[in-house]
């Protein structure tokens, strides 16, 4: 038994830091690999060593100079546009639904919340075939608008966290505003929203990331319209049997590029993000 408290603490800390460092290295290594090999000049696909022998920017240049049907800049633009629109629609609908459930009292409130909860339990892709044929019936298949609709129409169901946040804002503020003559709409925009920066940021982030990651719906909706692909399907295509020998290194470069907008957004909004996640959980 070690007597000195300081020594014991140091040993414990050392062990903890070593474990954390190992886990950190394991966690970061795929990203390090991705980043390094996106600058690799030699070889066509994977190589069995970690540090590339020759470095080059060519993969990135090739990625943005379009040859053939793999049009990465266009896919990036598609994804960005879809993400932007669904982000705006999602954010507004989530916040509006949360405000309604948090502040208004009406007969079916509890029931609707339960319904929303149950519906939210079913993953979106469960109904993808039905969604596809519905969109087709409306003439919206193979269309970026269809993606925006898919990503944003069910968004209101994810109201729980922001409702939790709104519940923590004292109702006394609403009442004071009502006395001053504000209606519910004005309270929402002028009183509640300005105080909800963290939760707005959280909603914006989650709804912006969705389209970058979704593969299943985008794939089934876009079919053979390669020019309308989003980055997720496009990148997957690059490593198909037909293209892998030509596009593997560009695929790595593309993966790095895709991470940039999301990472930037995260860095800017990081502070609020943590606040938003925790604040929403204070009172459910």
């Amino acid at each position, binding site marked *: 038994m070690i007597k000195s408290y300081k020594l014991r603490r140091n040993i414990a800390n050392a062990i903890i830091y070593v474990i954390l460092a190992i886990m950190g290295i394991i966690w970061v290594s795929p990203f390090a690999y991705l980043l390094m090999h996106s600058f690799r000049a030699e070889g066509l696909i994977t190589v069995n060593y970690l540090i590339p022998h020759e470095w080059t920017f060519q993969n990135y240049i090739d990625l943005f100079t379009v040859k*053939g*049907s793999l049009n990465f800049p266009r896919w990036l633009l598609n994804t960005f546009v879809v993400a932007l629109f669904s982000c705006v629609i999602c954010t507004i609908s989530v916040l509006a639904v949360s405000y309604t459930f948090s502040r208004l009292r009406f007969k079916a409130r509890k029931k609707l919340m339960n319904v929303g909860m149950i519906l939210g339990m*079913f993953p979106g892709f469960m*109904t993808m*075939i*039905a969604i596809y044929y519905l969109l087709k019936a409306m003439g919206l298949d193979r269309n970026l608008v269809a993606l925006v609709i898919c990503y944003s129409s069910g968004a209101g169901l994810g109201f729980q966290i922001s409702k939790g946040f709104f519940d923590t804002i004292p109702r006394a503020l609403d009442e004071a505003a009502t006395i001053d003559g504000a209606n519910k709409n004005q309270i929402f925009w002028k009183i509640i929203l300005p105080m909800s920066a963290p939760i707005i940021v959280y909603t914006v982030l989650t709804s912006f990331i969705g389209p970058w990651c979704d593969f299943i719906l985008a794939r089934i909706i876009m079919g*053979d319209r*390669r020019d309308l692909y989003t980055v997720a399907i496009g990148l997957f295509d690059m490593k198909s049997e*037909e293209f892998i020998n030509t596009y593997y290194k560009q695929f790595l470069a593309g993966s790095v590029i895709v991470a940039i907008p999301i990472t930037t957004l995260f860095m800017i909004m990081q502070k609020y993000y943590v606040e938003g996640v925790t604040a929403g959980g204070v009172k459910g």
Partner: protein
Amino acid sequence: MKTKQLLAMILAGMMTATAFAGCGGGGGTDQPSGDGGDGGDGGNSTALEVKENAIVDESVFGDEDNITLKVWAPEKAVDLTKKQIEDFKAAYPGKTFTNIEVVIQGEDSAATQILNDAEQAADVFGFASDQLNKLTDAGVIQEVAFVDYVTKTNVAETVTSATVNGKLYAFPETNDNGYYLVYDKSVVSDEQAKTLEGILEGCKAAGRKFIFDSGSPFFACTYAFTAGVKIDGFEEDGETQKFVDYDEDEAVATLQAFSKLMHDYKGTYASLGAAQIASGFSTGTCGAGVDGSWNTVPDQKALGDNYGAAKLPTINVNGTDKQLISMFGYKYIGVNAFSKFPRSAQILALYLTGDKCQKERTEEVGWGPSNLKVAGDEVVTSSPTLQAITAQAQNAVPQVNIAPTLWDPMGNLGNKLIADETDPTDTEFFRSLLKETIVNVKDEA
């Protein structure tokens, strides 16, 4: 509280019901292939006269005019296909073609895309032979209207492989969808390339790898086929894989011989993905490999003048050299059963697979033709790759009527042969491995 639970249950029930309804609806629209199928007989008789360059009389179009078609072609062949379609239009001056669109779609996933939604898919599409059963089962592919002509002008195997229940369903496009030996001539001599032992010796001496994807079923079935355990369509039930009669002792000895080479040349005999071959050539780590015809261009680019191609080598089993038997597929062009212009689609598919277009494809994209006339042409006989592919085609099992249960056991067999813990001298192990593989393929376990 009670009402809430009830409500929740009803809702959950409704959700499930709608989900199923959705699936049913989806499947339902795929079904009515009847009216589309009629279009297949659009040409009406098998004795339709086909003129030079696979052109037919304009009367075959029937009353179809202002024609709109969509064609799926793989990226490599898109530009050429566009050009060929211009020639096609010019060949029928009496018809108005509103729009013939060429869309890029890999042949490896054409069936998946069509089954997604046949109505939105291409009218005329290229696909690989392994997908034929899927397409005919779903009723999304039209019968070929020009049976006599297609049968007469193409390599017999390509035609029989596209025939299901006596009906021809697709136009043969290539006779090259398989794998063969590629080697770096500075590492492996042409003489060494004839035997597996020679190749491994050459690679080992140069410190290079010989890449043969033993874990990939498509490649690994070579081991079983070479051992004499070849597949032969289905049993009478139409779904269990049938095998030809084989000599078990010889089969076991062959598997043992493979395993022995893998262990003797450990570090040289590498089981890596085929895409690693071109990469290995470019970095100087690979000396030879068994590679697919789809990788020919990157291989050639990586090796330059040292590029060598040959049929698969032989392996020495108890003193006799046995030729390696591979799995071999073909590429076809099919016509969508839901096409709004079934006759035009048939005529276009016929044209695209005719001798003129096949020759152009061989010259410009390097595809091995299925057309008999083009196969004997100088373009083919002067290309080492196409010669290698043609030679291998004669030592191969066609990739048709494959039970889905074939793949995993074959990959497992390959992995076991090369596994470190396998002892190549343990005959009983290989006997039980072979039995296990057959049982698993037949799904009898």
